[in-house]
């Protein structure tokens, strides 16, 4: 099933997304931070999936024109970690006890894949994370399943498998120390961490 998703994504969406990402990255370099920053920032904070969907629905087009005329300070260099964080997005978020990717997750991963294709020296570690409402051992397994789903999707989009490693942190590395639904939904994520090969900012 994932394989089918991936091939469709590659054929129909890959190019378009690549353009989007490049446009975004270029805008970031030339015009400064403003171009794309709003998207990932919202995504980091927004826990429920619906908000993420909104956030990625209109990523570049809306923001970029507004900034064009402004003389901007220096933004993240294309191909840098900051570029990846600001313009692509490091994390996808899972539903409770789930490991399937929804549309918004796939959109983030498609951006990641396109970015990784642009910077072929970059190596990544995909970490699967879980919320604290499960037991340690089961969550280690669940996190590994989540990390593998993310890896398989990226590889299906053409990212060379040798560039990708996976790990599960189970529930041991929450990004939000809170104890409510908002915190837990942030902590159920697949985190794409750049290990090496990124350009300096």
């Amino acid at each position: 099933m994932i394989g089918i998703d991936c091939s469709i994504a590659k054929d129909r969406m890959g190019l378009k997304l690549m353009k989007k990402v490049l446009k975004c990255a270029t805008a970031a370099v030339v015009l400064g931070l403003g171009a794309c920053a709003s998207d990932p920032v919202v995504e980091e904070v927004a826990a429920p999936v619906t908000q993420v969907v909104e956030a990625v629905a209109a990523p570049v087009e809306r923001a970029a024109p507004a900034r064009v005329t402004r003389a901007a300070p220096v933004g993240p260099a294309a191909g840098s970690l900051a570029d990846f964080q600001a313009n692509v997005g490091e994390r996808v978020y899972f539903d409770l006890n789930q490991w399937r990717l929804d549309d918004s997750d796939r959109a983030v991963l498609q951006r990641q894949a396109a970015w990784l294709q642009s910077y072929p020296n970059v190596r990544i570690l995909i970490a699967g994370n879980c919320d604290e409402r499960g037991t340690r051992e089961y969550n280690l397994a669940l996190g590994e399943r989540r990390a593998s789903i993310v890896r398989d999707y990226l590889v299906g989009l053409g990212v060379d498998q040798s560039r990708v490693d996976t790990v599960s942190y189970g529930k041991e590395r929450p990004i939000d120390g809170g104890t409510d639904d908002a915190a837990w939904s942030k902590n159920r994520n697949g985190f794409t961490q750049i290990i090496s090969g990124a350009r300096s900012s």
Partner: protein
Amino acid sequence: MLRRLLAAFVLLTGLLAASWSAQAQTIIDVTEGKIKPYPIAIPDFNADPGNEEIARQISEVVRADLESTGLFVTGDPAAFIQKDLSIGLQPRFADWRIIRQDGLVVGQVGRTADGLLSVAFRVWDVNGGEVYRIPVENRQTGRVEQAAGQSFTIAPDSWRRLAHKVADTIYTRLTGEDGFLDTRIVYVAETGPKTNRVKRLAIMDSDGANQRFLTEGRNQVLTPRFSTSDQEITYMSFEGGRPRVYLFNIQNGRQEVLGNFPGMTFAPRFSPDGRSVIMSQAQNGNTDLYLMDLRNRQTRRLSDHPAIDTSPSMSPDGSQLVFTSDRGGSPQLYIMNTDGSPLSCPSGGRDTACRITFGRGNYSTPVWSPRGDLVAFTKQTRGKFHIGVIGTDGEGERLLSEAYLDEGPAWSPNGRVITFFREARPGSGPKLWSVDLTGRNLRQIVTTTDASDPAWSPLLD
């Protein structure tokens, strides 16, 4: 090590002597649910000159140990009438009966010629000669006047262990069960904010004394478990960046990665004979069960299923495993034969694994009781976590606790008590707790830091 030197005191009657070996003189029946704590007086032990302070400390630990089991209540020394107790003389039973004590411990602390600390003690039934039935459900009867008279020696700096040995002996003589007080608990000591938590291996005596760290905390560690030897543990560490199972010799500090698995390994546990470690390996999104033979380092795959199979725990005879699997759609407990052969399921049919939990909620971290008849587990339902026990046939589920988070049960070596970790309120941090398998006597084991994943050692030598 601790040596039993001699049974120092002659039993009063031949009849009683004959019953010792069979441990037939059980006077506290711990097999029934309703238990009235047994009132026992433990005055400070008499001391040879120069040993008064250590005698007082030993007596204090013996009292605390027995109280901690929930099966004994130790009398208030201020109420004691007879002050001239001597280990060589029969107490004045009337003086103890009138203050409503049933048992009495009389001890003597001294030194051997080579400087070892020595303790001799006797346990008396102050209703001497009466037939005991405690509690009323007690199915055992026996005339018990003097239940134990023994002497122990140990290096003076290990005086607490001497006290635990005394307490274990009293516990065993009066309940008929093996002791569990002269043991240690290994656990994960937690410090720092939740988003950057330091998790170190730590160890302490079972009463919370002598807490010390075993690892420095550079890498997060989880789920330490004792071998049948009290010197070796297996645990999971993130050292090197990914979860892997390690062996750790406590005595010499030596650590080694267990096996050369391509995937990450976690959820380790020793087989009851100590010769193997069973664990999970996760690879390409699937987690299955493996066994490593520690003698030849050969690994064997125990389960092969596209669902998650984790948290294996072996039956005392090694023939079966209980584990967590989400093959039915949510985490539940399953039992399989260690050799993979099909078995008859309690719920009907034959399969290579039988589901034993069908209640509402998720079940995980099963641990087979050392007695063989029960499985302890973590249950998550309706927004709460519980520790519970269930028969290996899936019958008789009982929940023993409830909190925001209760997780990771571990049995005392005699199968009587379960320790686990609890986050009582959201964000309050995990602490160690213990509970009797009847659900009575829930109590916290106080640690200097937050703590999780407790595991009990076997009885020390």
